[in-house]
């Protein structure tokens, strides 16, 4: 299986690449959209300001490749702002569109009750039969570092939810072959590696099923 880690200038890819490696995915890190075009699985990391991340992503030429990959329901993993990019937009950069694969807008944590950024290890609770979370105990801790979130709403989505102060947000999501986490699996020690291995298993199963 060919996994491509998308390098569009979004920071620390080194750790993501090493963790994917440790999880058995042996990724190719590439800044060339052509390399990603026929990948079996794409991994889209992201950190920093939503507007700047979108600008880098657009400038990199990866946007149409990722859109086509998602439209064809091929294995995909978004991490941190890589999850937020799947939404329609963010309060962090009003008017800047995301990929729109999921409905909704990314919001900022309310200040006052809790420290912002939400920084550190928080518990992730499975929502539905979440494929990424099958090998970790319910309420396992994962590492977060973010100021914006996608609100959790009861509905059809499977994945994970996490509560910070008064806010319960979507900390993981899976729809078909598309997966994403708000936390950093590459920074979440054994729990994180178990989640990356689960992604690899899902991606391989998807590849076999689609011949």
């Amino acid at each position: 299986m060919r996994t491509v880690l998308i390098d569009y200038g979004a920071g620390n890819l080194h750790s993501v690449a090493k963790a994917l490696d440790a999880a058995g995915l042996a990724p190719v890190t590439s800044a060339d959209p052509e390399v990603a075009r026929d990948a079996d699985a794409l991994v889209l990391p992201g950190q920093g300001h939503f507007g700047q991340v979108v600008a880098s992503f657009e400038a990199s030429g990866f946007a149409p490749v990722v859109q086509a990959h998602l439209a064809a329901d091929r294995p995909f993993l978004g991490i941190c702002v890589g999850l937020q990019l799947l939404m329609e937009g963010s309060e962090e950069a009003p008017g800047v569109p995301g990929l729109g694969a999921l409905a909704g807008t990314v919001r900022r944590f309310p200040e006052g009750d809790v420290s912002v950024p939400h920084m550190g290890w928080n518990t992730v609770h499975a929502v539905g039969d979440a494929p990424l979370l099958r090998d970790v105990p319910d309420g396992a801790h994962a590492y977060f570092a973010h100021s914006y979130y996608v609100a959790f709403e009861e509905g059809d989505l499977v994945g994970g939810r996490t509560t910070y102060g008064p806010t319960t947000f979507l900390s993981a999501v899976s729809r078909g072959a598309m997966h994403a986490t708000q936390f950093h699996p590459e920074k979440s020690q054994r729990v994180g590696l178990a989640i990356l291995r689960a992604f690899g298993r899902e991606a391989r199963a998807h590849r076999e099923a689609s011949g």
Partner: protein
Amino acid sequence: MLAKRIIPCLDVHDGRVTRGQQFGRAEEGGLRDVGDPVEMAVRYDAQGADELVFYDITATAEGRASILDVATRVAERCFMPLTIGGGVRTLEDVTALFRAGADKVSINSGAVADETLIRRAAEHYGAQAVVLSIDAKRRPEGGWEVHTAGGRTATGLDVVAWAERGQALGAGEIVLNSIDADGMTTGYDLDATRAVARAVDLPVVASGGAGHADHMRAVLQYGEADAALAAGIFHRGETTVPEVKRALADAGLPVRLDELGTAA
């Protein structure tokens, strides 16, 4: 629930971890070698440390090259958050540390010299990646004063006001090091930590003075810190990360304990 973090701190001098920072000791030849930074990082990772902080305490060209090498080698073996600081003065310094594998970069004297460094780093890498590290010394008349250059230079800045300024500039976390408490193993400066934690909406990491787990409990509860950093008590083997966390859990604090066997 968000867990309180326990963070071993490794002061790196010429590629080796030395004993706790103990302001001023580097010049007196008082450094003591306590181990290889990568081996120690791997050990703390296996213990389930929540994060690791590395400071380059040489802050010379050689020290810089050596801390970048340490960052890269640790990031290859430890899948956990890494904060790196020491002698960070320019955006190029910040970029080099992120490229080497840092998740957060800690800025101290460099921010006092040029406060726009915090803003520029945050605009570039996001607030969550920028830590303002403050060395605080108690004033005889009350309050605390910011010191730089490893505690040698008094700046006239008030610690609480500087922390608030750091938040306004875009820092995503404050590490508060007490110069008075550092290396004393008699407990953190609870009042300084609480004053800063109440003044800012950012996570606050308490540093300096840990002698045992109950000091950590006190600074996480009374001091209202989000995380407790310690060096000597871990490096000397007086306690371990799991021991500290069990004590904190017994005291009713939310901590991250063994999941899937973090203690290898």
